[in-house]
Structure formats: C-alpha cells, structure tokens
C-alpha cells in the first residue's frame, strides 16, 4: 500500500521570543511513514512531543528542519492549504472547537468556508450529522451537549469535508468511559465507510489497541515502532511511554507475586481468561 504520509528528519524547537529559542528540541530528528488506510497510534507521556508532531503534520507549527509529505504534496507555506484539505483534526477539549450557534451551523462551517452552494450543503450536513448519530440534536446549542456528543459533532464537521486523514489529538481523554468507547466505535465505523487513514495521539491503552501500529515518542524522539501486542508486552516501560499497563499485565504481575506463573508476554483479556480457566479446571 502507498504511503499517504512521509515524515523525514523532522525537528522542532519552540520559540519564547525573537531571540529566545528553547534549547531542547520538542521534536528531534523524527522520521516515519503512514500507509493509506492504516490506523496509527502515537503514544508518549505529557510533554513528550506527540502533540507537537500532530500539529506539525497539519502545518499548524512551522517546522524548520526536515520534510513532511502528505498525499504526495510536500508541506510548505505555499502548499499548507492543499495539505489541510486532506486532514481533519479533532482536539482534546471539545469546547475549544465550536463556532456555530447550533449543531447544524457548526457542522456546515467547513462547507461554508469552501463556498459550497446551499442546495448542495444542506443534504451533506444532514448526512454527516446522521452518520455520527446526532440527528435528534441538530438544532441544539453545542454548549448544551455532553463531551462525547460534542466530539461527535466535531467528527460530523470533518465528515462533510471528506478528508483522507483523520488526526485525533487526545480526542477521547476528556470523555467518560462510555463516551470514549462510543467515540472509538464511531471512528472505527467512519474509517471503514469513509476510507480514512487514522492517526490517534493517545494515552489510552484501549485506543492504542485499535491501531495497526504504535509509535512511541519520548523526549521528542521516536523510541519505538511496533504493533500493539509488542508494545503492550513491555511491562513497566509502558508507564515511561505514557501508557497505562494493560489489565492483563497487572494481573500477571500480581499472580507472580503469589507464586503463580502465568505465560510471559502480552496476553489479551480472552487469552488470560482461557489460561486461568484451564489452570483452575486442571485439578
């Protein structure tokens, strides 16, 4: 499959003023590629540089070293608008991304910006709102919605633009567990229906488990690149990488402390359950 994103030797330093350049780079020589249709999770603790990376991809931060290519277009100040056409982005705090007075208005904003005729716009907005399951809220004020509903509305806005790439920048971290599960389920569905490439920046182990591949960033550098099971098998190092331990890893450790020896490596919940059931029945 073709690479939809190519990042080569990307570095970034935050500036506090004209002269004052932060000595420690927020990103340090980061290179990776993303295949079209892939779900890539980027993990790292608070301050590791993962959000800086996400913002760089969308041209929100003007990096000085390295190159980013999105859908064959090299990201430069001249091409930034073309690149942004290809990327939809959802941020952490749903309250910071609303412009419309109603859900409908808000979802229409992107199309209005593109000067789409009203006759064309209305059905596209309705279809997008329906796609995210928010039809009954179409005339509500966004501020009256729950966090999870707000993120759905933000997703509907992205659906109207039909980008190739969806970037979730800790988009589920402020939601309650149910809202988080619903949103991940929706992203999974949109990914299939809209043929999206998904990049999710996250601390959430369940969100990372959805990915085909996980990149770990620490101190501005790419330190790990593997499938979720390989990443999850790393035990305590996961905490350093800004992830929680999977429940099965915690249980494995607790059992070892009690003289019981479960299999090594990462086990899914179903594998752990099967192993325990077999061991307990083995009398």
């Amino acid at each position: 499959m073709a690479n939809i994103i190519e990042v080569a030797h990307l570095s970034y330093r935050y500036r506090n003023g004209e002269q004052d350049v932060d000595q420690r780079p927020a990103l340090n020589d980061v290179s990776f590629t993303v295949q079209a249709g892939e779900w890539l999770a980027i993990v790292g603790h608070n301050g590791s540089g993962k959000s800086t990376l996400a913002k760089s991809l969308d041209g929100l931060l003007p990096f000085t070293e390295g190159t980013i290519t999105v859908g064959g277009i090299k990201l430069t100040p001249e091409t930034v608008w073309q690149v942004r056409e290809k990327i939809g982005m959802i941020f952490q705090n749903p309250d910071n991304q609303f412009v419309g007075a109603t859900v409908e208005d808000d979802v229409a904003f992107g199309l209005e910006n593109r000067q789409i005729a009203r006759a064309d716009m209305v059905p596209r907005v309705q279809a997008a709102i329906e796609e995210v399951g928010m039809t009954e809220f179409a005339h509500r004020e966004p501020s009256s919605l729950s966090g999870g509903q707000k993120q759905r509305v933000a997703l509907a806005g992205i659906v109207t633009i039909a980008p190739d790439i969806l970037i979730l920048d800790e988009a589920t971290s402020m939601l309650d567990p149910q809202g988080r599960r619903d949103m991940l389920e929706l992203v999974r569905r949109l990914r299939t229906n809209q043929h999206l490439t998904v990049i999710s920046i996250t601390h959430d182990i369940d969100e990372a488990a959805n990915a085909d591949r996980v990149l770990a960033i620490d101190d501005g550098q790419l330190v790990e690149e593997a499938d979720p099971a390989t990443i999850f098998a790393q035990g305590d190092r996961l905490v350093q990488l800004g992830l929680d331990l999977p429940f099965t890893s915690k249980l494995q450790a607790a059992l070892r402390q009690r003289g019981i020896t479960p299999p090594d490596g990462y086990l899914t919940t179903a594998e752990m359950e099967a192993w325990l059931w077999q061991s307990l029945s083995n009398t």
Partner: protein
Amino acid sequence: MAISFEHVTYTYQAGTPMANTALTDVSFDVPDHGYLAIIGHTGSGKSTLIQELNALLKPTSGTVHVDDFTITPKTTNADLKPLRQHVGMVFQFPESQLFEETIRKDIAFGPQNFGMNETDANQLADEMLTTVGLGSSFADRSPFELSGGQMRRVAIAGVLAMRPQVLVLDEPTAGLDPRGREEMMTLFDQLHREQGLTIVLVTHQMEDVAEYAEQVAVMRQGRLVKFGTPQEVFQDPDWLRANQLDVPRAARFAQALAAKGVAWDQLPLTAEQLADQLAARWPQRGSADV
C-alpha cells in the same frame, strides 16, 4: 460525622419558569476522615452536590452538615468564610485559575486573602510545594512555564495552603497521562491517611473508586440511587451497566470467569484482590516452576 446530608433538595432558579431541580431529597453520612467517591452519568447532579459542601449553592430545602458547620436554606453569605477555609475545592482543570507572576505568590494568595501575613504565607507556600511533590525550588518560577500536570499541582498546593480539613476533588486527574494520574491519586491518598483529610472525589475512573474510596455515592437524575462501600456498590455490575456506569476492570474480568463457572466469595474489584482469590483456589501452586 464529617459530612451529613439531610433531605437536601436543590432547584436552580427556584420560583421562576426556568426552575430546574438538580438534587432531590439526598441524604447520606460520611464518617470523620472518610473517603467518599461520587459517581454518575454526566448531568446526574454530582457537580451540584459538591457545591453544597462549601455553600457555593445552599439547599433549597434540607440541611448539610460539614464537621461543625451547618448549611440551611437560611444560611447567609456573611457566615461562610470559616466554612470556605474548612472545605477546599479543586475544580476541574484547576490550572486554568493560576494567575500570579510566581508560583510562590500564587499559592500564598489564598492564605493572605484570609488574613495571613506575607512572610508566613510565603513560607506556607514553599511547604505546600513540597507536599504536592514539586519542591520549593519551583517557588520563584512562573506557573505558566510548567507542564499541565505541574500546573495542576501548583493549583492544588494553593487549595492545600488554606489548610482545609475536607478536600473536594472534581475529576482531578482528567487529561493527565497514566503516570501523572497515579501520582495525583497517591498524593490525595497520603493526605487522607497521614493528615486525616476527609476526601470527596467526583470521578469516572472506577479503578480509582475501587482502589481508594471507602464509600461510594451513585447519582442519577439528581437522586442518590445507591450508597455503600465499593464492595457493595460494585457487587451488582448489571445494575451499574443499566445505569451507564462502568465496573472496575478486575470486576468485569471476574464476571467473565464467573460466567464460565468460577464462583467468587466476593466480587474482586482490583487486580490484587483478584489475584488473592485466584491464589486461594489455585490447584497446584507454583507447579509450573517445578
């Protein structure tokens, strides 16, 4: 009792056509030095409930007792200063309330506002910085140079500098990474165990409820629909799920094993409790090593 609610009802904009009852006939007791978790879906009344604790909202009817303080519909604002010092409130994203030039000044602001002189307040600020795990070397820095998690610690130090006896926490770990979350929860646990603070925690994190809370209040549509120990409340996962509430990971896992035929004495709520019960019934302990 540290906290006692007696038939507390609260109506927003009472007596107007906009009247909206957010709490209905809520009664419960939290013993001295207790640790209460409040859980419930968005809009269930959790935030309204905690604002009754320092009379940011006064009951429309009923009575709230917090240690020696009594809050009734008739309580006037003139009486509230000692209560506000006694009950420390950490709202969601408290770091957004930081405003001073230096961290020391920010933490010392509250105590000075309550009449402490600058020298004592500064000394207290340095002490609180150590309590929240940052250390007094941070005191002269700007709070806005810090990471999100560090800023939150400064905001919490500012609340602790009031020397509250009751600490109310509204989703204090939202938006932090797992390590930051654990450090934060450990800090509150220490304040509870070592300094005897009564803790009231509003959370969606059922793992934290299982790990730290001594009592759990479940809110739904402004009513208290369940109250008990975590053991009692989580004992009925089907009921919780019907109320759109989660159960801790370990309990969910134990339930799946129960469906296969493992009978638990008591539903385990943490990985440690689950491992204890598994070890107790393990057929040939450690045989895999032999």
